[in-house]
């Protein structure tokens, strides 16, 4: 976990700029990781040793402390991805697109986790791997199917600027779709199964506390993973820029980045940056 703040010296101006960027991405990563690990440990401890066994479902109900926080964090992540995309379209700063991409990417993984844990819970309590009467699960499937096209959409557009713009339009539309879809699916479900916990207010206090700690831990985990991905992408962009500079020094062979669905930060190699910034 090397902080990317150490890199070869360029001109003072460039060094300053890159120092800023490195501080933005690398700073606080260690603190965040440590607090996420501690929070997860505390949450799991509470889940297994503090929260009482639920009367009807017994041990199985403990998946609630994983499933529901995953779902809430993923939903918030999708909406956050839309908000970051609005910021990208307003400022045209590719870094907002990068953040939006990372948040959506991570939410997609969390959504998959929600689907899997929900499926396990459904099998345990109702005997079926999939139930259409559970609105959270059904709306997650629809949202998951929609967001599964996010990366293919990006991948199908070659021009990076247009890719970022179209992805932002998608992220805003889909981000607004998330709550609408949730409402529509909830309306359509006639509550065939009595829901165990519709909200936290009817939980006994120890369960509510455990749930809230689990939620906080999951949110921290999400933030940490996003930060890791951003830092990794940033470091990779720097390495690529430096490699390009090396290649330019030896021969005029440009190092072409492989085409990808992920947005790439375009660092200009120091020597060129000085020349270009004059433009």
């Amino acid at each position, binding site marked *: 976990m090397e902080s990317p703040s150490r890199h070869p010296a360029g001109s003072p101006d460039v060094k300053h700029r890159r120092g800023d960027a490195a501080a933005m991405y690398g700073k606080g990563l260690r603190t965040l990781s440590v607090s996420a690990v501690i929070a997860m440990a505390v949450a799991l401890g509470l889940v297994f040793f503090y929260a009482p066994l639920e009367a009807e479902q017994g041990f199985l109900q403990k998946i609630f402390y994983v499933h529901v926080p995953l779902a809430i964090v993923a939903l918030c992540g999708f909406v956050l991805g839309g908000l970051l995309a609005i910021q990208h379209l307003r400022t045209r700063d590719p870094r907002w697109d990068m953040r939006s991409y990372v948040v959506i990417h991570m939410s997609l993984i969390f959504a998959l986790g929600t689907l899997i844990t929900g499926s396990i819970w459904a099998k345990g309590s109702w005997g079926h791997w999939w139930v259409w009467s559970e609105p959270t699960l059904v709306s997650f499937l629809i949202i998951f199917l*929609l967001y599964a096209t996010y990366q293919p959409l990006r991948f199908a557009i070659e021009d990076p600027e247009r890719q970022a713009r179209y992805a932002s339009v998608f992220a805003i539309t889909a981000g607004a779709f998330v709550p609408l*879809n949730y409402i529509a699916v909830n309306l359509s479900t006639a509550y065939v199964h009595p829901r165990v916990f519709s909200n936290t207010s009817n939980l006994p206090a120890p369960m509510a506390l455990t749930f809230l700690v689990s939620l906080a831990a999951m949110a921290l985990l999400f933030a940490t993973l996003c930060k890791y991905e951003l830092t990794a992408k940033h470091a990779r962009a720097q390495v690529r820029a430096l490699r390009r500079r090396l290649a330019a020094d030896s021969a005029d062979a440009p190092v072409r980045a492989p085409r990808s669905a992920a947005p790439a930060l375009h660092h200009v190699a120091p020597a060129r940056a000085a020349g270009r910034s004059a433009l």
Partner: protein
Amino acid sequence: MSELLEAQPRKTAPSALPRRATGLAPTVLALLRKELLVELRTLESVPGMSLFALSTFVVFHFALQRGSVEGDEAAGILWVTLLFAAILGVNRLFVADEDQGGFDAFLLAPVDRSALFVAKALALLAYLVVLELVAVPAFALLLLGPTLGPALPGLAATLALGDLGVAAIGTLVAALAVRTRARDLLGPLLALPLFVPIVIGGARAISPLLVQAHRTGPAARWLLTLGLYDLVFGLIAYAVFDFLLED
């Protein structure tokens, strides 16, 4: 940096000209007229959509092994058929503009870009109405058990509300997908999940209409759901559409 340099002339040029030389309504009307004229001369979308709907009914007849359907099944078959036929239209909506330089010509004109969205959505709406004028009687003839007559007002209201949403979403999705390499694939993949709330509201609204006995009107709450979804998605699509047309 290079994007900035390219963007420079684009940014200054429109401000030198009056940005809205013509209002939104005349532009929309002109674009809509062009759209319908092209469709009338080429007949690329609507006949294909209608034929597709008819073939789908035949396929449903054999797949379900039923001579007639009613209630929930009838509502489901009708919506699935109409949506899949609509997707054919959505896929073709911007293809001519992309292939033959219509986008560039439109961007050169000093008009509001949202006009293109409104005009295309209205054109798609018109295609959908024509499609339903063919598909609904055909459905009544081929598959529907109960008589269509008494159900018609409620059905028309529900389909109209559904069409508004399909037109707004379809236009946005078509514009998103048309300039990608996998446009035929991405269009339906993007559109279907976004259509799900329309199917939820639409199918529940029309299924009590398509029964033999105890026919009731569409529940107001489903029509309201459809209307709200149309409104919200119409506004979202209108707001973000401009960003798809910048190069």
